[in-house]
């Protein structure tokens, strides 16, 4: 509790600093509109404009891509861990793919899927799937052998084994992979929108920038900051709920 | 070399954890250590013996009471009080030679002299041939020998040792006892040695100060200077009696520390 208070206090302090610097006109209003101006602008865009629609669209793309990456990533990861042929074939692909700047593939996705939602969602999925695969494979690999053996001696079949034991035991690590993938999904969705245009947070910010509308740009940044923080926090809460049984200890 | 008598006067120390209540670790400890003496601080876990050592070393601030070395109060760590830790505290990114040179490099000596001194120290602790090894490649006993050599490099008048052989197995520990005595024999130092091992304390030290359970006080000081051959001393009845006596003292304090009653 005390930590949370300290954390919010330091953020508030920084926002105050922003406001003070902007009001003192340390730099021009164009370069740094004050926090209050940006916040007011965001509020205005939400209430009177269609900012919520834009935010919703960005979230829709990020989430859909993330969901694809999550399901696909876990499936592929577990496949790699349990099927030797798949491991041989996919392991180098994944280990080469992981450090590649996958954002460079954006024009390829545009070529293949056009400039609308499909391209953005698939781009997100492509970028986010790698950390999920790595986490799922490592998790499935690391499942305690004694867990598996005791289940087998109790008569569990292969399918049951997979679902009940492997998935459950691997859940903490898989979830960590998902927590890494979520911010990636958001970043890629935003970059894709910035590049390809269309409604959405990314597109809106670029539009504001083109019109030299700096309060609009900063309003957009605020929106992204809030959305990003909310997503990270949401995943943390979800983790604690799902993994109640896991002795991860208190934070 | 200046006289290096150590004087603890009414030293108290309160441990303040980041969360929770402050705890009195030491309660008005007074002790005089003569120049060249080997004193062991003996006591159960948590009795504050290490804390007393760290205060003497200058790593913790002396808030209550006073600690003086050769008449001057202790305010900060310094090369006059070399320290050896239980977990060796070697710099893992430096080779054996560079670990030892680290202390030497602080002194205004010409390079050739420093290199030579390092070589001497390596030889002193029987590690010739391992100059370029990294700590990760050494055994526990070897690591502790490097730690001792590194501390000796600054030629301290006082040697502070915090359960230095606690992490070693019994055979290595016995060997290290002999090495330590040989080293001190060659260049006498004042030694303050913290341990919870009664036999070790009685064997190595001139005097043993037994400390009580927390808050630490000096319970009793026993003279453990036995005449005659050091190697045969462990079989004498005097030795056994002293060990028995000290062991009982420590045991009572250990029981108290665990919250039990002394029977």
């Amino acid at each position: 509790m005390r930590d949370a208070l300290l954390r919010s206090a330091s953020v508030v302090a920084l926002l105050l600093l922003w406001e003070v610097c902007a009001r003192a006109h340390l730099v021009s209003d164009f370069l740094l509109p004050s926090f209050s101006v940006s916040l007011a602008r965001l509020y205005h865009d939400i209430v009177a404009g269609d900012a919520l629609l834009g935010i919703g669209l960005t979230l829709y793309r990020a989430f859909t891509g993330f969901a694809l990456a999550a399901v696909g990533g876990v499936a592929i990861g577990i496949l790699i861990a349990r099927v030797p042929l798949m491991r041989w074939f996919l392991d180098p692909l994944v280990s080469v793919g992981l450090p590649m700047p996958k954002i460079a593939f954006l024009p390829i996705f545009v070529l293949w899927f056009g400039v609308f939602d499909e391209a953005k969602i698939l781009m997100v999925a492509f970028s986010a799937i790698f950390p999920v695969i790595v986490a799922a494979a490592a998790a499935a690999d690391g499942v305690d052998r004694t867990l598996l053996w005791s289940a087998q001696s109790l008569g569990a079949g292969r399918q049951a084994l997979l679902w009940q034991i492997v998935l459950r035991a691997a859940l903490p690590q898989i979830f960590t992979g998902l927590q890494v993938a979520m911010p990636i999904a958001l970043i890629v969705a935003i970059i894709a929108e910035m590049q390809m245009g269309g409604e959405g947070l990314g597109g809106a910010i670029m539009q504001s920038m083109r019109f030299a509308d700096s309060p609009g740009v900063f309003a957009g940044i605020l929106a992204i900051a809030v959305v990003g923080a909310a997503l990270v926090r949401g995943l943390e809460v979800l983790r604690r709920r799902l993994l109640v049984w896991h002795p991860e200890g208190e934070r | 070399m200046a006289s290096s008598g150590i004087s603890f006067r009414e030293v108290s120390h309160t441990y303040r954890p980041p969360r929770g209540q402050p705890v009195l670790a030491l309660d008005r400890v007074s002790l005089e250590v003569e120049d060249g003496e080997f004193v062991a601080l003996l006591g159960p876990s948590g009795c504050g013996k290490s804390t007393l050592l760290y205060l003497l070393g200058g790593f913790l601030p002396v808030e209550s009471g006073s600690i003086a070395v050769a008449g001057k109060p202790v305010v900060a760590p310094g090369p006059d009080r070399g320290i050896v830790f239980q977990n060796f505290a070697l710099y893992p990114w430096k080779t054996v030679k560079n670990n030892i040179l680290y202390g030497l490099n602080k002194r205004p000596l010409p390079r050739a002299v420093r290199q030579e001194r390092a070589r001497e120290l390596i030889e002193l602790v029987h590690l010739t041939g391992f100059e370029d090894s990294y700590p990760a490649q050494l055994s526990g006993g070897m690591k502790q020998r490097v730690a001792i050599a590194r501390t000796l490099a600054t030629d301290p008048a006082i040697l502070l040792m915090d359960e230095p052989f606690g992490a070693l197995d019994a055979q290595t520990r016995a060997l290290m006892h002999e090495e330590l005595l040989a080293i001190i024999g060659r260049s006498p130092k004042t030694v303050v040695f913290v341990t919870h091992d009664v036999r070790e304390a009685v064997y190595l030290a001139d005097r043993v100060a037994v400390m009580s359970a927390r808050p630490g006080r000096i319970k009793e000081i026993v003279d453990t200077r036995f005449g005659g051959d050091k190697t045969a001393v462990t079989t004498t009845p005097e030795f056994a009696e002293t060990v028995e006596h000290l062991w009982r003292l420590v045991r009572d304090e250990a029981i108290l520390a665990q919250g039990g009653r002394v029977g």
Partner: protein
Amino acid sequence: MRAVALRYAPLLLLAALWEAAPRLGLVDAETLPPLSAVARALVGLAADGSLALNGWSSLRNLAAGLGLGIAVGAALGLTMAWYRPMEIVFNPLVRILYPLPRSALIPVMILWFGLGAKSKIAAVFLGSLLPVVLGAFNGARGVEPVLIWSALAAGTSRRAALWEVVLPAAMPEILAGIRNALALSFILLVASEFLIGQRGMGYLISFLGEGGNYDGMFAGVLVVSLVGFLADRLYLGLMGWALRWRE
């Protein structure tokens, strides 16, 4: 040697597939040109100098932004861990930047620095800063106190101990943070080159794509991906060498 070949054989398989599929008509050769055509385009780009020009621009901006990020990040993280006032001052900044996707700040960089190299360098800098700060901070915090005490007892001043003990002891975490920063800096470089244009591999890729030269576009993507992968591998080797004292 044989083990390495066996391990990376699937990549050759993929390459073969890439060549075969468009040629056999399994996929439209327009959307996925065969590997040989891409290779030819790559040679063409090298020959007419566009690879060198844009590659050099990207490399320069990446190095500048990353170098700055590492230097500032390490200094910040270490001093934050060592001096409490530093931590109090900079902590809120780190807390706010952490969940914010740094690529979202690219438009702000454009506002501040215009459409040029400065904005790209600033974007790369922002991306690489935080992982290094966190690595340095956590690494410094995790140093065993007895290591520092040993140094103090040898006569080292508190200030000198930061350089002589804390920095080397924190190296494993700092180097891990730099590895992260390396990956992020590639992403931010390409993204900023997409958005800012003018020069650079990202610009080249989108320029070729818009011009319909898909062979060239794929060639560009291939180059960038390979460089990203190689950079990571090379860095791992460097890291292994620097940390060779570990068990």
